[in-house]
């Protein structure tokens, strides 16, 4: 019970007692003689009348003020009466349940007293161990209240609540690689409000410390994003995720080409393809940037988790798949080719091809002999044969050429050991060797 309320009761009590004591003396003498029944009735009536008038005055003024309060704050009669009572008398130590506002989970209890929410105190404010509250009073930021039970002053209301627990937010960052290919990746931030002291996780104290400066910074640097809508004002975590993290990830990743994030060619260990950068390198760089910006906002960034960079175009993934397929196909083709060349069939084909080629070449050589009825000397056939032989040999390796020349010379020696017939045509000359040609 506050002093003003006590004074009012005291004044009323004194007035009543003085009146009650004075009345019989004034009306009926010095009070040493007993009052008759009618006098007693008159006394009681006058006393009751005075008492009623005093009580009416005492009761009526709060009603007048309640009507004003009800209109001023647009409240129901009951709420206005309760509020007026608290405004006039302060909080009773036996404050009813309705005048306590709880703050937990980063927000004021919406099921709590709407009057405290809308108008403010006097009321009790119960702040949970994870939260910090910034209050406002009559258009000015008033106090920063940590965990515990607090008395809200008249018209002091909860302006903002900060959840001290580590907050995680995940954003999908879309960006363009340096070679102009749209890509995206997921990034998560784990952050919390900066603390002025080391947290000591002991049962008797709140688990999270906080810096008043950081809390004030965080709550007053919210940005208004649009005119209407429930999400018109971004909270501090959203600001960290959507503005700081999103921007930092994009600013870092857009400096690289797609192949610098993921390049299957590098892993073939062929040529001088530059190595893709490790995700960790990006993560460290982004974390540094986000930490610096968070510190400016009064936020501690615990860590950043950067997901894989993925191309937004399906054609890229398809190309990677096709490349992987081609890589496998290459091995399959080589194996198949080697298998095919080992087959006898292939050899047989080659034999037939060789015969065809040989016949064709011989045919080319003897083509001139079949026209007309001229005599075809055997030396010409042998010469043609040898011509073809040298032609075949010409595209072979030097060792093989030497072998063939030796065979051909043996063959010629054998064929020319015939005694010279004077009627026969001259012995066919050995054609020039492929080397001499």
């Amino acid at each position: 019970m506050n002093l003003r309320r006590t004074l009012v009761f005291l004044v009323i009590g004194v007035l009543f007692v003085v009146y009650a004591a004075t009345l019989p003396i004034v009306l009926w003498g010095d009070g040493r003689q007993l009052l008759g029944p009618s006098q007693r009735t008159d006394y009681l009536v006058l006393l009751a009348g005075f008492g009623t008038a005093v009580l009416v005055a005492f009761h009526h003024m709060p009603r007048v003020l309640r009507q004003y309060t009800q209109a001023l704050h647009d409240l129901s009669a009951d709420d206005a009466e309760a509020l007026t009572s608290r405004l006039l008398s302060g909080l009773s130590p036996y404050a009813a349940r309705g005048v306590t506002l709880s703050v937990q989970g980063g927000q004021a209890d919406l099921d709590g007293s709407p009057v405290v929410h809308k108008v403010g105190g006097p009321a009790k404010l119960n702040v949970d161990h994870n939260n910090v509250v910034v209050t406002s009073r009559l258009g000015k930021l008033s106090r920063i209240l940590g965990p515990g039970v607090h008395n809200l002053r008249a018209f002091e209301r909860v302006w903002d609540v900060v959840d001290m627990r580590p907050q995680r937010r995940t954003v999908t960052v879309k960006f363009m690689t340096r070679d102009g290919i749209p890509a995206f990746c997921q990034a998560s931030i784990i952050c919390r409000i900066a603390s002025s002291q080391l947290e000591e996780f002991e049962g008797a104290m709140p688990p999270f410390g906080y810096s008043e400066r950081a809390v004030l910074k965080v709550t007053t640097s919210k940005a208004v994003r649009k005119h209407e809508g429930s999400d018109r004002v971004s909270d501090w975590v959203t600001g960290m995720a959507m503005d700081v993290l999103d921007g930092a990830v994009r600013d870092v990743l857009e400096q690289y080409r797609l192949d610098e994030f993921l390049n299957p060619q590098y892993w073939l260990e062929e040529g001088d393809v530059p190595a893709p950068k490790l995700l960790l390198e990006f993560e460290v760089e982004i974390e540094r940037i986000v930490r610096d910006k968070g510190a400016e906002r009064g936020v501690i960034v615990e860590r950043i988790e950067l997901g894989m960079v993925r191309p937004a175009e399906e054609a890229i993934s398809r190309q990677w798949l096709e490349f992987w397929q081609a890589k496998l196909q290459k091995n399959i083709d080589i194996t198949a080719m080697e298998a095919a060349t080992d087959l006898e069939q292939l050899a047989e084909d080659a034999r037939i091809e060789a015969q065809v080629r040989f016949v064709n070449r011989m045919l080319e050589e003897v083509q001139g002999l079949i026209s007309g009825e001229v005599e075809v000397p055997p030396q010409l056939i042998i010469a043609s044969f040898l011509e073809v032989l040298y032609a075949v040999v010409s595209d072979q390796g030097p060792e093989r050429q030497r072998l063939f020349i030796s065979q051909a010379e043996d063959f010629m020696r054998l064929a020319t050991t015939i005694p010279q017939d004077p009627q026969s045509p001259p012995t066919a000359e050995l054609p020039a060797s492929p080397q001499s040609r």
Partner: protein
Amino acid sequence: MVAARVGLLVFYLMGTYLLNRYLRGHHPTSSTLPASPGGEPWMALVRVWGPTLWIFPGLLWIGLLDLSPLFVIVLSFLLPLCCLSLFVLFSGVFTSYGQSENRLALILMAGSILLFTTLILLAALIQPGISYAKFGLFCLSSVTPTTLSIWLLIIWAPAVVPMSDDVDAPLRVALSLVLGFFSSVPKTTWFVEDGKVSRRIDGNAGRGIGPGLLVTEPENVVVLKTGSRITRVAGPGAVLTQRGEVPFRVVDLRDQTRSSTVSAITRDGIEVRVPISSAFRIQRGSRQVSLGAPWPYRAQRDVLQVLFAEEVDPSGRSALDAHTAYPWEDLPIKLSAHKLEQAVSFYSLDQLYDGIVDAKAARVPRDPQYELLKTHRLVETSLGLSRDRQLGDRLCRQTIGKTVRRSVQQALAPRGFEIAGGGVGSPIEPVSRTITEQRVEAWKSRFITKVMDWQESIERKRAAALGKIRQEADSKMISGLIAEISKRLKDVDGAAKRELVAYHVLDRLIGMARSSEVRRMLPESALPALEKVFEKIERDADVGENP
């Protein structure tokens, strides 16, 4: 007489009880009451103290004083009224705040009541046989409840009226607002909620609508006007408005962020979508937000300049709201969009994705970064900006964003804006899908080249293997042929050797050509030709043997 007195008491109690119940559910609707000059105090007096039935405590004294009941009745009514009149007169509630026209009427009325009461009192006091003690107690019992109620009002009213601590004469203000509420000229009261002004207590239009109370949120101020004249910027906090002042607009002092996407064309004719954002607020100067102090802004002039920078643009709007101005919060982003569109037109599409990675290389004329830096400088000059020594970021879009921000800052700083941030924060996308597809194709070419290299290498290996096989087959066949002919020649005598070689070569050739697999691959004329040569050789041989 005792019974009458008891009846009067019962009537008083019941009347009080019933009135209390009635008034609980009924609000005073002051603004609908007819307002008469000088009548407001009495209206408030009746509506506030009337329900106390202040006459009854005095009426109970009828028959106990040595006075006629008429005296008692009149004095029971006049004595409390006299107290109330004096209170109304000396509190200044209805005579200050520009209500001086009430003063005379109030003085006359209160003076009349006081005079009349004094006369009645004097008349009562000169009545024969009057007990001054009884009369004094009667007067006290009549006046005390009313005085008590006035005292309670005085000590309680400031507690229920939301006023700043720095208000002058808080009691008078509080009484003015409370009693004004019950008069025919209530003081208009506004609250700012979620950035909008909400009128809680209506003023009386017939007698002006001030002075009143305006309570803002911590983060906004309200521009007030009187008639068509802007008077001041009020808040943040609980502000007493002057007579005739009404809220014109609420201005949010918090940081604002707006974003938009601009469709621009690069210098190589490619249309791109460029996202742009702008972070700004009312010029704050060097002040910071702190506890117990109003949310800072540099000067009223800044707030008013920002507000009156709002533009009317009927394009794209219905006839109904064609002349409604766009809010001031849209101005920075609109200007940013315009500057951005201008800036992008200086760059090629490839430059937009490029950046200055090496500051030294950017000074070498043939380096692409030199060209980009040159473009940055050109944009800077064309936007009318001074030379920035640090121009050129690792990403072109960052430099464009900074340049646009500087340009917007230059244009809007004189209008009270403080540009706190913004830029091109999201990826620049070509409008046409073809561009992206083309870029993807270019990227794919590296993979395709690699795959083709593989295929070529396989083909080369295949060709090499096939060539080797063919060479081996050729050599085998020829070696076999030579070996067979040589073997046969050993058993043949001299003269027949040549014919035999020729004959055998041709025979083997025909043999090969007749093979179905070889024949399939030879021209049709091959076999007849060989057979013809063979016949010739045979005929020639026959002619030689039988000349």
